[in-house]
């Protein structure tokens, strides 16, 4: 009665990311702070830190951060969609938020997937691990540098065994 749905294959790679996160807690960390020049909106500094000089190209780093900043800007944009969401929610005394996901939360999910994808493609092969700022109170973007160099965090797509699959009962 066991089968591997497509989602499980993705989960296997996530399993490994969790192990990487654990080993990340033993690594040195670099923190990118918030950029407050435009006010209280969520935006991170794109200045390339010297500590990452040996590990990653400046352009890749800047691209990741600029994309993140774009996502956050979109989430915090005050425009037609946010008005609509606000007015609709107000009309229902905000009870609708118990059933519905807000726009910000949907974008946070997109950001989480983007960070995961960036980690798999770019950062873990270079021995870095990017943590989602939402886990740090939206204060910092943290890069964990593995002490073993580029091989430190291993490869996310390797070393998973089928026995890790979930047994799904109908």
């Amino acid at each position, binding site marked *: 009665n066991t089968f591997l749905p497509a989602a499980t294959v993705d989960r296997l790679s996530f399993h490994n990311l969790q192990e990487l996160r654990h080993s990340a807690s033993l690594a040195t960390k670099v923190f990118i702070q918030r950029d*407050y020049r435009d006010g209280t909106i969520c935006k991170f500094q794109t200045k390339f830190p010297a500590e990452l000089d040996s590990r990653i190209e400046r352009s890749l780093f800047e691209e990741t951060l600029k994309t993140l900043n774009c996502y956050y800007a979109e989430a915090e944009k005050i425009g037609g969609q946010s008005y609509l969401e606000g007015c609709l929610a107000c009309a229902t005394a905000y009870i609708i938020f118990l059933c519905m996901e807000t726009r910000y939360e949907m974008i946070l999910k997109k950001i989480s997937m983007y960070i995961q994808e960036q980690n798999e493609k770019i950062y873990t092969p270079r021995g870095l691990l990017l943590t989602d700022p939402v886990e740090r109170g939206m204060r910092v973007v943290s890069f964990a540098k593995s002490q073993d160099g580029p091989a430190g965090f291993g490869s996310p797509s390797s070393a998973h065994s089928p026995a890790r699959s979930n047994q799904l009962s109908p």
Partner: protein
Amino acid sequence: MITRKVTRKWEKLPGKNTFCCDGRVMMARQKGVFYLTLFLIIGTCSLFFAFECPYLAVHLSPAIPVFAVLLFVFVMAMLLRTSFSDPGVLPRALPEEANFIEMEIEAANGNVLAGQRPPPRIKNVQINNQIVKLKYCYTCKIFRPPRASHCSICDNCVDRFDHHCPWVGNCVGKRNYRYFYLFTLSLSLLTIYIFAFDIVHVVLREYRNFFEHVVSLTPHCTVLEVLVCFFTLWSVVGLTGFHTYLISLNQTTNEDIKGSWSGKNRVQNPYSHKNIIENCCEVLCGPTYPSVLDRRGVMLEDSTSPTSSDASAASTHKSSNPVSQTTKSSAPLIPNEHTPDEAKPSIGAGTQKSTSSPKEEKPPSPTSPNAVAPAVIKESAH
């Protein structure tokens, strides 16, 4: 089946908050005045519905109690949202971040001679061409973002801190300010409404029952309601007016009290759009910020014996934080199952409680939890 106690993150959160409903509700410690608020609102409205509304519905219009009910429901919803939600608490810095900031501060300060006081920990940032000072919070070990402040009652740094309101039993901050404002506004309307119709009721009765001897409880209730409404009116309507003024200037109560943006040599408010409509829209119709405090994420606590077959990965539930939080396990055991697909839209709906038996959610049908095969445990236990 082995029952395993699941520790959720709210149990280990620092600060002086109380949590209810397994982390879904977050309030300050002192709730006495909040109960008084509830009692006054529910009590007065109950008297109104029980004694005034029947008369008014018959003699004037049935729309009167209907509108009163809608207004009452709205007031209660806003009150509960303000009181129970996370005001925008900033989580404290983890040790690595705190050390990183300390190192930055030491590097910036240079060598401090023995006996000399170290300079105050302040960071200057330029916001919209104004210099704003960010202060360091010694409790939370962070430089407070602009407009954030540390609430000593709740012992938390709160983003866009307005004030700590004992009447709602919670801080008012970025995430619940609009609910607080709508609460005061709707409560003002409700108070005026009840007050007005009490007067109408008394006047009508006086005219109609002039020649009839009517002995009833109604006049006494009406007097009580009028008294409560009268005193409430002055305070709540005044408060609503004050907050309307603050919103139009995009200021917080905290900034107003401290005089951050007033005075000749002071900085002008860098957050104001200089346009009343834009300021109001930003505060009232802006995006709804999610909570960054992961209250309902599970902390892995592995207290079961090795023979237990059900020590599965703890499932993460989401209340207001949509992103699954990775839990840093103390032992390198089963990592947290973590996929974005698992994110359920039902926030705070409390779909599953994993306290009785360990369950694992699967993305396709999140409502049917499964027991994880023993193989999973043994594989990952390394």
